[in-house]
């Protein structure tokens, strides 16, 4: 590792420690006056609440011009998408009290439980009331008491998400820590580390082990968060990030031969060799859990337990009822080979038009009746002409976290061997090219020298 990178990483670690340890300049004032929600923040940060209402974290949707078969004039995202990792969305699976199960028990459930509002002011709402309903502290406080964030019914019967607006939580604010981000991002898709299967711990990610936190890479500008280019993450704040920038150059390796790879191979391909989490779900058959409620049948793996698949990706997305994944090829001049977490989900399709149907989770959660869930969602969406038939959908999730330490990144022989991790034939190489790319002639001398140095 170059001295420059070590210096930057140490700098990041020091900065992180300093920032986290530094007290918020308004702490004394907050302790004196107490906290009254966003209007307290706005004394020093005017306009920030209104600004936040325009972000994906609030709207759960944005335009997604890079995705096929969408109306590009409309916004798409968790608010309204239908796919088979989450067969519901904020509209059909809006937070609500589900019907009683066989034991007469009920509970609250819904996709928008992570929305940083109070639910009565919901996803994508605007105006002064919406601004004042923002839960600033859930992202910015290190002393948030999660006993105070709970779902209750108010005296009018509305389902409300309460917040911790205590002076103590407000007095301990700063840049969001890993914990603040993972409060929501850890449990997406139906449980801990299920959806993308990445864990932001020092054991699982080399960046975290160096003291780097989420917002060091996802550097927000006016509450807009830059993201990578996961083909299954459609909504964005319109700003994207790559590995190349403050920390890594376009030629990050000492070895010029390895640097040549960066023209066609994404950094993640070698440096994120494993993935994890759920790899298959069946929304047509729900399992009865020991608490008497039902959940979609899910096959899961631990963090770093699964091998990724590799494909050419030009940062545009193929979106059909049975496939969501990268577009690209060897020859388009734009694509690189990226790693993906492969997921396959089963759900109901409309036999009449071939489109994937959505599901309201409340009925199947109580009784296991998945068709009742489809019927409820169809009613909410105004779909009358449908005939549900089961079918499978394949989804490629971007594999952009779980960066391995240098020694565990893929090396020459991992790809350039006959049984290597890349399926070169499927990636568009001819038999003759595959033969040429998988001879030890390419790497033998280099690896022998490395082996001798390490012995």
């Amino acid at each position: 590792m170059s001295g420059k990178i070590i210096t930057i990483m140490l700098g990041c670690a020091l900065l992180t420690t300093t920032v986290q340890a530094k007290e918020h300049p308004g702490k004394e004032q907050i302790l004196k006056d107490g906290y009254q929600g966003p209007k307290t923040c706005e004394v020093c940060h005017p306009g920030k609440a209104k600004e936040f209402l325009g972000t994906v974290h609030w709207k759960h949707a944005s335009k997604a011009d890079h995705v096929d078969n969408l109306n590009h004039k409309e916004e798409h995202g968790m608010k309204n998408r239908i796919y088979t990792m989450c067969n519901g969305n904020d509209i059909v699976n809006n937070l609500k009290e589900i019907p009683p199960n066989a034991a007469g028990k009920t509970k609250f459930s819904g996709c928008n439980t992570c929305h940083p509002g109070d639910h009565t002011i919901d996803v994508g709402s605007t105006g002064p009331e919406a601004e004042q309903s923002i839960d600033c502290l859930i992202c910015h406080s290190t002393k948030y008491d999660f006993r105070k964030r709970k779902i209750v019914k108010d005296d009018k019967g509305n389902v409300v998400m309460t917040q911790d607006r205590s002076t103590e939580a407000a007095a301990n604010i700063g840049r969001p820590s890993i914990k603040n981000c993972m409060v929501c991002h850890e449990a997406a898709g139906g449980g801990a580390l299920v959806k993308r299967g990445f864990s932001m711990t020092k054991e699982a990610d080399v960046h975290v082990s160096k003291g780097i936190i989420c917002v060091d890479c996802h550097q927000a500008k006016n509450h807009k968060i830059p993201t990578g280019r996961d083909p299954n993450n459609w909504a964005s704040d319109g700003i994207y990030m790559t590995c190349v920038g403050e920390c890594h150059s376009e030629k990050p390796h000492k070895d010029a031969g390895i640097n040549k790879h960066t023209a066609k191979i994404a950094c993640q391909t070698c440096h994120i060799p494993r993935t994890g989490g759920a790899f298959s779900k069946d929304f047509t058959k729900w399992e009865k859990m020991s608490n008497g409620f039902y959940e979609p049948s899910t096959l899961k793996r631990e963090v770093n337990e699964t091998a990724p698949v590799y494909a050419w990706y030009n940062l545009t997305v193929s979106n059909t009822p049975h496939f969501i994944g990268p577009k690209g090829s060897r020859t388009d001049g734009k694509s690189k080979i990226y790693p993906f977490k492969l997921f396959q989900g089963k759900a109901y399709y409309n036999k009449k038009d071939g489109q994937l149907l959505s599901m309201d989770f409340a009925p199947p959660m109580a009784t296991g009746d998945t068709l009742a869930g489809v019927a409820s969602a169809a009613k909410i969406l105004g779909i009358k002409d449908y005939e549900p038939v089961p079918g499978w959908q394949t989804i490629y999730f971007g594999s952009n976290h779980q960066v391995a330490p240098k020694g565990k990144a893929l090396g020459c022989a991992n790809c350039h061997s006959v049984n290597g991790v890349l399926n070169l034939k499927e990636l568009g190489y001819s038999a003759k090219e595959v033969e040429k790319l998988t001879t030890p002639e390419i790497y033998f001398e280099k690896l022998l020298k490395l082996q001798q140095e390490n012995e």
Partner: protein
Amino acid sequence: MKKALSVIMVVVVMFLASFTVVRSASAEEVKITGVITKIEMAADKKSAIAVLKDNKSGESVTITITDDLTLDKFKDHRIVDGDEIRTKFEKEGDKNISKMFKKTAGC
């Protein structure tokens, strides 16, 4: 004769040793799912015990937790009494030491 006896002894010892290792590695790891009935942090906050009511047996199982990530979730109450947990633990002496401790619920 002496050499043959030594070889037999070595083989027997190795066989017994491997049996012991395999037995302890496979027999002591336990996975359960259950609802938390009690969480108690140690005075130094470096460990905690959680009592889970095993969904299958209905018995109470006491788990010792030492990893920072889970302890932090106890401290800020992201994990509280009544939450359903999937856990993997190993028996070490009279303690069940947690190796994985996750809420089953998600959105």
